[in-house]
C-alpha cells in the first residue's frame, strides 16, 4: 500500500508480539502523510531474522498527528511527527 503527501492515514490498531517501531500512542489514530523518507528494511522483520536475512524494503513516511487526535480536546494544539513504515499504515 503506498501513500502520497497530504493523504490521511490511520496507524494500525494491533498488538505487536515482537519488536516494532509503531508506538502504542498512535495505534488506531488518524494522521496525515507529510513526506516519503525513503525505503528501509522493516525493523519488525530485522529483529526476527537479522540484518542479513531480509532484503525487502518498505517505504518510510513522515506522518503528522494532532495532539487532540491522540489525547483529546484538552491535549494542547501541538503536532507530533512520526516516521512510520508502510505496513504500519492504512488509508483513512
Amino acid at each position, binding site marked *: 500500500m503506498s501513500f502520497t503527501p497530504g493523504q490521511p492515514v490511520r496507524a494500525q490498531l494491533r498488538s505487536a508480539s515482537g519488536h516494532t*517501531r509503531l*508506538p502504542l*500512542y498512535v495505534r488506531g489514530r488518524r494522521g496525515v502523510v507529510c513526506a516519503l*523518507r*525513503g525505503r*528501509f528494511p522493516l*525493523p519488525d522483520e530485522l529483529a526476527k531474522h537479522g540484518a542479513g536475512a531480509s532484503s525487502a524494503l518498505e517505504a*518510510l513516511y*513522515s506522518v503528522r498527528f494532532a*495532539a487532540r487526535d491522540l*489525547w483529546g480536546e484538552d*491535549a*494542547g*494544539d*501541538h*503536532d*507530533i*511527527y*512520526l*516516521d512510520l513504515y508502510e505496513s504500519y499504515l492504512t488509508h483513512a
Partner: protein
Amino acid sequence: MARRVAQLEALLIDRGALGATQVDDVEDVFCHRMGAQNGARYVARAWVDPDFRGALLADATAVVRERGYDLTGSSNRELPFLQLIAVENTPSTHNVVVCTLCSCYPVPLLGPSPRWYKSFAYRSRVVREPRAVLAEFGLTLGPDVEINVWDSNADCRYLVIPERPPGTDDLTEDQLAALVSRDALIGTALAREPR
C-alpha cells in the same frame, strides 16, 4: 579496572584482533570528533549561508555525506543511521526532538545523548505536553508559537536549527557556533544571545 582493560587491550593487539591504535581511534571519535560542536557548526553555517541552509533543509543527509561531520570534508562522512532531517525554528514554530521508544539521536552531530533524553519522563511527557516540559527546561514559549514534536527512529534522526539570536550581525561563524548548545540542537533550549 583500568589496568584490566589495558591488559585486555594489549592481549587483543598482541593476538592481532585489534590494530595498535584502534581503541584510541574509537575513543577519539566519541570524545572529540563527534559532538555538539559539529551540530553547532552546521547551524552557524546555515545562519550565514542561505544556499547551505536551503541544502540542509532539503537533504541534510546529503550535506553530511558531502562535507563530513565537521564541515571540512575531511572527517567521517558515513552516518551510522540512514537519514538526517533538519527542522528549522521560526518566530511562529518551535521544534523539539524525542525518541519515545528508545534514544535515537544524531550522535555525530550532537555527541552522546544526555541522560534526561533517555528518561521515561522526557520520552513520555514531551509528546503529550511539550509546552510544560520546555518550561521546565527554562524555555517558555509564547502561546501563539506552534510546537512540532519529532519522534525519531533508528532510520531517521533530527537536528533542530534554532533561530539566530538578535544582536549577532557582526559575529564570525565561529562566534555564532559558540551560541548553539546541544540542548538548542535538540530543541529544549534556544541559541544563546551574545553577552
